[in-house]
């Protein structure tokens, strides 16, 4: 199997030396007030400046640029006034993976990862026949004649079947939203800091039944940036900046494209075959397993991602995520902290980018009131429409 031969070639090849984001709370307030302070490029530029300051470097140190999927690579390069020798465009987790690959092959040494998104002020559509992402993921748009247009509805179908097959209840799922809001209540950057109870969760309206309001991610504007550097360069940068180094210890990926539009991998397999492959890769490359993980961060456009990630990545058995969460605890004080910043549900919907900087903060010990004690390994899991990518960050 290719998964066996992926080797340890990217293990600690690169480290994150700088992280930053825009003021999501202020961005949200201004946009809701009808203001349009920045476009996606502006949010990216703000975050980029702050990430360089966090790392203590300047633009002349940077020779690689990866921008998020919401901005054009070339135009962002112009806005940032960067002339890199290597560049690309990618989603959050793939951007980190690509930065490590570019560094490992000598194509770049210090890579800036820049994301900006004006999705709320631009009223980006995530449902309907013209929905964002429909050209890549036909399932997002293909069923629009029947009114099945939103990604939430696709996850509702997935979770409904999972409930029927496993006996999982809505209140089992509700634990996720309650726990993440509890994390967010300790996070001064989170948009939604008011704690909720399981009763609040169940009393909130359904959107696409069986998913309730609090199962859905936020929609907000903002930006995130990271500086990823080759290990020896990273050590030199960290010596000057005084910031602890956070290495990328492992990367795993597996995709399920077969019958994706007709929802086969989603409804028949819950994406498990891809999760199992990606899990084996990331754990082998990192040299750690789920028992070594101090915090788990999961791409959570919808709360049910967490249940599927816990099962697919070996934290518990299939169908057991609800009872595992109840027994283990995934909120503050729990044995397996999950989405410690509040995630997309409660912190900020930065499409996985906020999770990357939360991972770095936790390992640096910059988590403040939400700091996970002695945090050395943070595992990230992303599973967007059958594209499973996972990272292990390590001290």
């Amino acid at each position, binding site marked *: 199997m290719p998964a066996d031969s992926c080797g340890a070639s990217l293990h600690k090849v690169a480290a994150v030396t700088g992280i930053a984001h825009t003021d999501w709370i202020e961005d949200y307030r201004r946009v809701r007030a009808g203001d349009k302070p920045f476009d996606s490029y502006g949010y990216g530029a703000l975050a980029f400046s702050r990430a360089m300051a966090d790392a203590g470097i300047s633009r002349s140190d940077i020779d690689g640029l990866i921008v998020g999927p919401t901005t054009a690579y070339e135009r962002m390069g112009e806005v940032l006034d960067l002339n890199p020798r290597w560049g690309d465009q990618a989603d959050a987790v793939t951007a980190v993976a690509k930065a490590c690959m570019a560094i490992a092959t000598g194509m770049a040494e210090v890579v800036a990862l820049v994301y900006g998104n004006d999705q709320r002020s631009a009223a980006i559509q995530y*449902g*309907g*026949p013209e929905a964002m992402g429909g050209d890549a993921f*036909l399932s997002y*748009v*293909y*069923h*629009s*004649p*029947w*009114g*099945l*247009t*939103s990604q939430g*509805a696709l996850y*509702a*179908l*997935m979770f*409904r*079947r999972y409930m*029927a*097959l496993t006996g999982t209840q809505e209140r089992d799922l509700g634990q996720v939203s309650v726990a993440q809001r509890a994390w967010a209540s300790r996070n001064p950057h989170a948009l939604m800091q008011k704690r909720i109870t399981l009763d609040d969760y169940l009393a909130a*309206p*359904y*959107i*696409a*039944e*069986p998913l309730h309001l609090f199962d859905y991610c936020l929609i907000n504007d903002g930006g995130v940036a990271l500086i990823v550097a080759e290990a020896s360069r990273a050590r030199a940068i960290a010596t000057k900046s005084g910031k602890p180094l956070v290495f990328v210890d492992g990367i795993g990926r597996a995709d399920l494209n*077969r*019958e994706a*539009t*007709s*929802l*086969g991998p989603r*409804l*028949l397999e819950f994406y498990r075959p891809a999760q199992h492959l990606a899990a084996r890769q990331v754990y082998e490359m990192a040299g750690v397993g789920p028992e070594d993980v101090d915090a788990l961060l999961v791409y959570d456009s919808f709360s049910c991602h967490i249940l599927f990630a816990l099962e697919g990545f070996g934290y518990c058995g299939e169908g057991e995520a609800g009872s595992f969460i109840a027994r283990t605890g995934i909120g503050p004080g729990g044995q397996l902290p999950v989405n410690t910043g509040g995630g997309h549900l409660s912190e900020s919907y930065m499409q996985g980018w906020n999770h990357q900087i939360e991972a770095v903060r936790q390992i640096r010990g910059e988590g403040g009131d939400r700091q996970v004690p002695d945090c050395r390994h943070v595992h990230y899991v992303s599973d967007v429409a059958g594209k499973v990518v996972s990272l292990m960050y390590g001290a």
Partner: protein
Amino acid sequence: MTSHPRLFSPYDEPMWSSIAAREMRLQRCAGCSAFRYPPGPACPRCLGVEASWEPIAGSGRVLSWTTFHRQYLSAYPPPHSVVAVKLDEGPIMIGSVKPEHVAALAVDRAVRMVYVAHPDGYLLPAFEPA
């Protein structure tokens, strides 16, 4: 009024014409006999490009369903439900389901295809308990 919704590929048009005739057809691979959905340029199983349009039985079993409690499209005031069905021919497809049939839905429940009118003027496959 149109005879079909937005086409996402040139291969969709014969399917929507068959739905308009109340006899839904899907491409069936000339090489390996597999039905495929959505319509496309090649057979995912064997990559053969030769196919014929064959009628489907319209029978299948429920995989899952969801009910929208929020209005996203003018054609579908809430509550509006859709069901994912594994057709006896193999492919999975989405169809509408009327409110009075939602309570009877269950995983593996047998359903049959019926045709309902969309406000934009075309016919749509829907499902009801068999």
